[in-house]
């Protein structure tokens, strides 16, 4: 029973994202779902840092952008045959950059950490924006080629993204459930105690930061192939903000919450965007409602059919030490 509950989210995940292919919703919606799943990876990767470790980075657009630009520029420059390798190189590039930024910014706590990550990302955005010859500046880079097996109908790229994302999400899921993941959870709740358990908070945070940056860049690289274009907005701070929004709307203390958040954010943009260009207003309202009424996010709500909370048992439990 316990193992079924543990894998239920995964079953739902496969049923939904593969079932969609069977239904064949048409090019437009397949493209939309590809965005959901890529943003889903971005959000899950970000949440390893945000919900898990308790570090509010406001600069993850940097890693997302590095992934997108490395993948896109390599494909543009040397042909798309090794597309998968380029995505991987994007991840590695972001991981290398994250070591330097992490070493500097993790020395700071709270709002100072947040501001420093923002500054680094904005710096990269500014440079990308201005280096016209290299990055295409404001216009970005268009017509990024895809390998032959991914061109043609959108579902091909959707399926490709699904496979890559699922592998990445699975790895992050394993990490969350590992002893390292448990240490990260401990750091969020009580970093001082982690120190006095003989563990180095800074080192563990740094490793989490690098892992998060790596998978964030994978998501960015996938996105570069989806639209075949990259642009400096991918490095701009609203992209960083979106990660925070997705995790909070979905539930930052749950593993799959960020995927739900990604679906809601993308869906809102799509549905509201159909009727009006003021969809960011509606996202603002949703965030406001979530913050005020469901601070634990949609997956964090105590649904009536959810698992029994231990708090309810408290009443009947005798103080545990009186038995001896």
């Amino acid at each position: 029973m316990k193992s079924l509950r543990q894998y239920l989210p995964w079953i739902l995940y496969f049923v939904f994202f593969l079932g969609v292919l069977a239904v064949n919703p048409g090019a437009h919606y397949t493209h939309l779902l590809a965005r959901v799943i890529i943003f889903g990876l971005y959000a899950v990767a970000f949440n390893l840092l945000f919900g898990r470790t308790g570090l509010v980075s406001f600069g993850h657009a940097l890693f997302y952008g590095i992934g997108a630009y490395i993948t896109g520029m390599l494909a543009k420059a040397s042909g798309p045959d090794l597309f998968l390798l380029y995505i991987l190189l994007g991840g590695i590039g972001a991981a290398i950059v994250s070591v330097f930024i992490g070493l500097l910014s993790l020395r700071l706590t709270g709002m100072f950490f947040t501001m420093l990550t923002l500054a680094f990302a904005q710096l990269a955005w500014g440079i990308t924006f201005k280096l016209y010859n290299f990055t295409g500046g404001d216009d970005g880079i268009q017509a990024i080629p895809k390998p032959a097996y991914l061109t043609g109908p959108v579902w091909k790229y959707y399926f490709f993204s699904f496979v890559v994302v699922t592998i990445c999400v699975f790895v992050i899921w394993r990490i969350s459930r590992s002893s390292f993941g448990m240490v990260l959870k401990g750091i969020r709740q009580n970093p001082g105690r982690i120190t006095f358990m003989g563990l180095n908070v800074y080192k563990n945070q740094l490793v989490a930061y690098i892992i998060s940056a790596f998978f964030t860049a994978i998501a960015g690289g996938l996105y570069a192939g989806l639209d075949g274009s990259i642009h400096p907005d991918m490095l701009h701070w609203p992209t960083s903000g979106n990660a925070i929004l997705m995790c909070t709307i979905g539930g930052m203390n749950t593993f799959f919450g960020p995927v739900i958040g990604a679906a809601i954010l993308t869906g809102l943009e799509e549905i509201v965007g159909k009727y009006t260009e003021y969809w960011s207003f509606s996202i603002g309202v949703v965030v406001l409602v979530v913050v005020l009424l469901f601070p634990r996010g949609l997956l964090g709500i105590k649904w009536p059919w959810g698992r029994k909370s231990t708090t309810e048992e408290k009443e009947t439990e005798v103080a545990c030490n009186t038995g001896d």
Partner: protein
Amino acid sequence: MPAILEIKDLDKHFGGIHVTNHVNITVERGEMSAIIGPNGAGKTTFFNLITGSIPSDNGRVVYENEDITGTRPEKIVKMGMVRAFQVSSLFLEETVYDNVYLAALSNFGKNIGMFADRLSYRDAREHTEMILVRTGMLGCRDLKASELSHGDQKILDIAIALTLNPKILLLDEPTAGMAPDERVKMMALLEDLHQYFQLTTVFIEHDMDMVFGIAQKIRVLVQGELIAEGTPDHIRNHEAVIEAYLGKEVV
């Protein structure tokens, strides 16, 4: 008896206040001792200094014949000098079991595993259960730390420290804020742990029943200065100590 911990000429100022004033202490292996002193005597600061939480201005801390002055706190913990806190320092959203288990992972160096399920380490699991049994916490292993009574939280805090296989255990007011019956229980627990693990234990305490009940040696800190040191009988009749305590109350 050989010394496990030697503190030599330890000194600390906060602004103009001399919170630790050239303190010299030698802790012998296996001793059960208390540090007492009026509020603001610098007792917790003293613990913070020797465990590496804050840097000292002057002086040396020698542990197991090794100079550990300026060593990072997590390294000192790994060397076997472990502390528990005055306000229990727990992972409130986690279960009692997980609180202890996390410490066990650290103890066995299994905290770096990234792909295996966190519960797949048998040595850590067995160690956790042993500690839970020893501290009487097994019955509430699945309760969240936030759901425990104040007294049980203090015991869990000590259980975490114990899991780290300490050679010397530093306890900051183990009975702070406890009801009388909880104090008695804590006293019994500490005596049991001291005997069972042959554990060197140094505790800060205000409760004199506890201090004179279980400590073999008592040290008195007043305004950052070690004014007396000795057996309970010696301290009971020590003039400077009586003056420090009574004098304060008279004023």
